[in-house]
């Protein structure tokens, strides 16, 4: 009995620094979550980008981004710290997007007025340091083509593609957030990649 208790204490003492580190990390993130202005400053652009290209609707994305940040702020106590804050926020954004897409109100407005993204405008925001002036025109064309391929994908394929290649999440993280089996995520990614590479890869 005493040996068991001692070994438990030893394990606890070994695990304590790791636990304390995780707790400190979580405490840091929670303090970041406590300040909604800081939350907006650090994460708004990234969430807006993800939702815009996932839904293809810039105005809707604006609403979803605000809802996401407000929901995160209100539910900050539920953040367990077992994933990064950006992953957690992306998960919330996906849930909020699903709610909006399911609502009849969205379908009505979607029929009435589709606020499609202006991809030409978006491509013109390519930072000058990202590509040389000689390759700039070509790079903008590649961006437009990639977006055109993404538009043709299903919602799930497009969202998973963005989660993987824009949000840089692992397949396991995507699987957990979407509540999908890892193999299903892989299948969606394979289909999305096949479509993208068949259009863009042909020009190599």
């Amino acid at each position, binding site marked *: 009995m005493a040996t068991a208790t001692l070994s438990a204490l030893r394990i606890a003492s070994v695990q304590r620094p790791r636990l304390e580190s995780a707790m400190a990390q979580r405490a840091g993130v929670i303090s970041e979550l406590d300040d909604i202005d800081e939350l*907006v400053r650090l994460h*708004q652009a990234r969430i807006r980008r993800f939702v*815009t290209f996932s839904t293809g609707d810039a105005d809707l994305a604006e609403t979803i981004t605000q809802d996401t940040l407000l929901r995160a702020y209100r539910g900050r106590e539920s953040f367990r710290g077992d994933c990064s804050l950006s992953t957690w926020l992306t998960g919330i954004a996906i849930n909020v997007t699903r709610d909006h897409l399911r609502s009849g109100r969205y379908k009505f407005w979607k029929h009435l007025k589709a606020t499609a993204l202006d991809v030409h405008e978006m491509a013109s*925001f390519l930072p000058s340091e990202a590509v040389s002036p000689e390759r700039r025109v070509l790079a903008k064309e590649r961006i437009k083509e990639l977006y055109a391929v993404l538009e043709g994908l299903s919602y799930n394929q497009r969202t998973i593609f963005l989660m993987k290649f824009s949000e840089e999440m692992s397949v396991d993280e995507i699987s957990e957030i979407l509540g999908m089996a890892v193999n299903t995520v892989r299948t969606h*990614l*394979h289909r999305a*990649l096949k479509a993208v590479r068949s259009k863009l890869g042909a020009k190599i």
Partner: protein
Amino acid sequence: MTPELKNHLSEEALDDVLIGLGTAQSHAHLAVCPECRDQVKTFLGDVTLFNAASIAWSKSRLPRPYVSEPRVRVHAAFVGWVVSAAALVVLAFGVWHHRPDTAPRQANSVPSQPTDSEAQIAQDNQLLQAVNAAISPDEASPIEEYKILESSHPYPKAHSKKRMK
């Protein structure tokens, strides 16, 4: 020719590498095959350009005025309580002031009459007595001399009553 270069990576193997699930064999092939490596490089280059442009575009978007709802709710509740309390105070003040003011206000609402002097009252009484004497029925009416009053008028009682008035 090394075994890795015998065949290029299949589409699926290439996708697995891009997804981050490439096998050691695939990575070994990529290390020695420039064509497959170029495919990976081109794809990742396009994605990088897309990400750079899209995040710059997103940052440039003017955010809507951000409503920090929780704070507003607290303020709204506080303001609501203050307004309710103020309304109650005003109401209570009004009720309290309404009762004692009722009688004096009614009295004040009647314009004040100038008080008459004793001499004026006596003069008025004299005038009234003179009027009474002038219209007194003791004095015979000149019409009565002709005895025409009862025969000529079909409704003598009514007529006389009118005249009396």
